[in-house]
């Protein structure tokens, strides 16, 4: 079988210090995305365990697999969970979840959990969509914006490009930053356009002295992704009348948050440094769902 470069490895973790049996409230959140699913379990508001799995062809199986992954060998079973909620594109496929929640509010909550209560702007970059969320100080969503219809499939296309170019998804971002200067980005309109244009960057160029290096090709592609995200973030209210203004307390969530080739370029354009978390930013949706469950 051909090696797969574009997939984030599946992962799981459980706390060694928390005893779920002592918890007054055990809550589970599950975020069923278009390509991967995360489940998180909170004990009295503390993160107890999580799992992240690839979807395959069935949302339902992925949901069950993520939840059992999060319960793992902790001895927890579904009946021990006091409240559960599902969010994400495939949320209707988790029959064990008591509540369905919208992604925007889950990511907002999850981001404040992961990055701290000072978060004012959340940029969730998933496989299917990009969401930019502006939060009030008092934990309410002030505004949110999502990608245009014809700019969907952000994260999934990064996976595809990794597979096509044989570069691990864990490395493409860092490599793309190893360039002397930013090359002209490929199409910033739609990821299919961007993909075909990227593949055309190889070979002898007609109007350039030398072909682009591989890192420059990555940079050209990831810049276009970053630029499209800026189009979403920039529309958030309140809007400054000059350049895009983003509150400095910005957090990235979702799979693309782990791609510095995208996040660093966005930070550089916005002149901010994003907040950091010790947890995987892909968990924001699931944790948010568990909090709100």
């Amino acid at each position: 079988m051909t090696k797969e470069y574009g997939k984030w490895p599946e992962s799981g973790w459980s706390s060694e210090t928390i005893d779920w049996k002592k918890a007054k409230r055990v809550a589970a959140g599950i975020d069923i995305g278009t390509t991967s699913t995360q489940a998180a379990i909170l004990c009295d508001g503390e993160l107890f365990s999580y799992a992240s799995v690839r979807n395959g062809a069935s949302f339902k199986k992925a949901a069950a697999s993520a939840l059992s992954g999060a319960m793992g060998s902790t001895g927890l079973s579904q009946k021990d969970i006091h409240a559960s909620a599902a969010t994400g594109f495939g949320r209707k496929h988790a029959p064990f979840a008591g509540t369905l929640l919208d992604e925007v509010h889950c990511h907002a909550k999850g981001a404040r959990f992961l990055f701290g209560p000072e978060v004012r702007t959340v940029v969730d970059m998933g496989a299917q969509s990009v969401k930019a969320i502006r939060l009030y100080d008092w934990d309410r969503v002030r505004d949110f914006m999502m990608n245009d219809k014809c700019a969907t499939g952000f994260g999934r296309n990064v996976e595809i490009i990794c597979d096509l170019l044989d570069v691990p998804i864990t490395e493409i971002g860092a490599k793309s930053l190893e360039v002397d200067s930013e090359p002209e980005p490929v199409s910033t309109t739609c990821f299919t356009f961007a993909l075909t244009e990227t593949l055309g960057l190889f070979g002898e160029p007609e109007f350039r002295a030398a072909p682009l290096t591989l890192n420059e090709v990555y940079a050209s592609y990831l810049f276009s992704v970053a630029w499209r995200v800026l189009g979403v973030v920039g529309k958030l209210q309140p809007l400054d009348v000059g350049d895009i203004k983003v509150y400095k307390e910005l957090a990235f969530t979702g799979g693309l948050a782990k791609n510095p080739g995208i996040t660093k370029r966005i930070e550089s354009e916005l002149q901010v440094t994003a907040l950091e978390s010790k947890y995987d930013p892909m968990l924001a949706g699931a944790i948010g769902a568990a909090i709100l469950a």
Partner: protein
Amino acid sequence: MKEQVWETRPLECWAKAKELRAEWQANIAKDDKIVGQGNTYFVDWQEAFPAIRIVEDNPAGSMIQAKSSPFARKCRLASEIRGWGREICGYHGNIWGSQFLGYDENGAPFARRHFVVPFPCVCDSHAKRGQQVRDFEPVPQWMSDQCMYLGPRDEDREEAMNEHKAYCTLRQINDIERVFGQKFDDEKMVEMIHSGHVERECRSEISRLMAQTVPAPISVKDMYSFYTLGFLTRIDPQKNLDFWKLVRDEIKWRAENHIAALGTERFRWIEAHPPSWHFLKYYRYMEQYGAVCLGSQYTSGSGDYKGIERVTYPEDTPLLTREDAIRYSDTPNAREPVGFKQDEYMNRPPYGEDVLIKFARYNQANGALLALWRCGVGCTLTRKEQAMRLREAGFSVLHYEGSQPGDRTDLDEKRFLNQLDNWMESQGMQKLES
């Protein structure tokens, strides 16, 4: 180069054109005049107000893309985040984005506009985009209209349209006199109509020589350096006229002496619209095949190919008053629509032969390269139908896709060049050895 057939040499007037363009560019940035934003093609009275300068959004927007892709991209993002759709004409995304940002591609402050006359063209709702100047700060705005109808000439139907047009222009002039305390020079207006006529004759002659001489004495690649001088990018009227006479004389001399724009000319092609301004080098690429571009009805100063009798200056109709002059200069817009898009609406079946077929025949073209602009409604609608008609008439046609001439976003350059190779090879052409 092998297969060289004709003598070729650079254009002498090119340096002058460059100088005049630089003058226009420098003028935009200056703040020595009252600056109006508008389409100079329709605001053709501006020279009669010596203290007023009109800046046109299309060439200014395309200049941004031609000079700096990163800045143009930043401008379009600045527009997009304020609500402008991503399918909006790149010229406007660029120029208004620059206004939002507050600076131009050189980092200089965006020159303030003191009033606006939105571009009244049925092509792609330009008038709406002109509102941006008024939205940005409350400056005076005057509207106009580009009236049109389909079918045979109908003078009764034109009457109200002409009155409307004349009213709009006269009101603009009267209001500018009142608001800015400027005096409109009626005699100058009449003089401008005369000199405009001479300029048009020069352009017409150049287009005729370009179209009907083999080898073409000038290609559109060179023409793009100066075709907007005069009617879109206004400079000193006398300098402008001298320049166009200079170009005409040089082209005439070249035609008579068989000096070719491309020494290896063996395939003549036309377009329907300018290409992406950042990628003009594809004309050179095509020259490797001995293929020369004769331009489009957009760049052609000649209406001869339409086979319609030209509106000429009536020597026997003296223009005595301002109103005479305005009525004379405005009404051809309704009588013989001059905008390229209107041409395409009206000169097509069932109202006659397609205007592009006429243009291809007039230019003795072998084929046509027709852009499909995702963000240019006016430049794109009818294009596929025209291609079908051109093919039926025996012309080879290639389409390529992009955003818009002022927006390089979706132009996949590699793919475009591959398409050109395929097209040329399908026509039995091979690259010539250099």
